[in-house]
């Protein structure tokens, strides 16, 4: 599944993932945002990996924030925007 979200006032955020046994699998975040350190990218993917599909958005945002390395900076992207993108990927194919 594939979702894209142009964060208002920000950059393009993209999430690709699969579902396995009711959980997120193979989560891959990408886009033209700015994120430092760059090692934060796989950390975010790992924080989303294996989460149950029934999880609420606030818990997902908190999971990302808790996993980020100390001093991580984001420009044109946010934890909330990542979760919006992930929801779009899950609803892929549904009418807008």
């Amino acid at each position, binding site marked *: 599944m594939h979702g*894209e*979200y*142009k964060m*208002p*006032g*920000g*950059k*393009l955020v*993209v999430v*690709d993932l699969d579902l396995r046994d009711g959980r997120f699998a193979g989560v*891959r*975040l*990408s*886009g*033209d*945002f*700015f*994120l*430092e350190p*760059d090692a934060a*990218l796989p950390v975010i993917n790992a924080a989303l990996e294996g989460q149950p599909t029934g999880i609420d958005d606030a818990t997902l945002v908190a999971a990302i924030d808790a996993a980020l390395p100390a001093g991580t*900076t984001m*420009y*044109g992207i946010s934890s909330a925007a990542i979760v919006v993108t992930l929801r779009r990927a899950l609803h892929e194919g549904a009418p807008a």
Partner: protein
Amino acid sequence: MSRSDWRDHDWQLIHAAPQPPLLHMALDEALLDAVGAGRRPPTLRLWEWASPAVVIGRFQSLRNEVDFDAAQRHGIEVVRRISGGGAMFIEPGNTITYSIYAPLAMVEGLSFQESYALMDAWVLEALRELGIEAWYQPLNDLASAAGKIGGAAQTRRGGALLHHVTMAYDIDAAKMLDVLRIGREKLSDKGTASAAKRVDPLRSQTGLPRAGVVERMLATFRRLHGLADDRLREEELAQAQALVRDKFGTAAWITDVP
């Protein structure tokens, strides 16, 4: 620590003969580290391209951004840079690309937007002197009334900031759209219906040859901030070549975000 100003630093210019795309990627890392470690004074590097390339941002998906078959058909190499931001389509002579390697002290306490505005100010002045009214358009674009002129990207590591910019001098928009996948979502808040309209090149706006635009830009930097002619050192080139071999030229790096 108080913020330093352009004139507090002894700016150096590196403007070498055309170099291959992978070497440019590696030079950005090598020179950023050199300035961050205090081995090199703050530096402006003007890029000359030896061959065409698509340069994708640090976090862009290779598959989502590039039509690989089309790139191969056109003989265009795909490389990944160390900064975030979007894909650039490069043909020698068609873009003006430069990097600023600045001490972090220059952006101490500034927001990201303020640090882009600070680093872009001299080039906006240069464009104004060339008759182009241009401005920094957050988050990281250079814009004019006629359309986008270029884009900037920053990354920070050690004690230094990299601010690099690619401006379109001339552009084969059809070829660019053949090679880059520019999605509808990306264009959703840009206010233009066609991706080709997003870029307005400098050639049509200045009527000057590319080298003339570059010369005027460097003269403006020199006048505003001071600029001494320098060259790439042996050990810097050797380090960049090692980075090409061990990092930028590897499949692991190019496909790091597949």
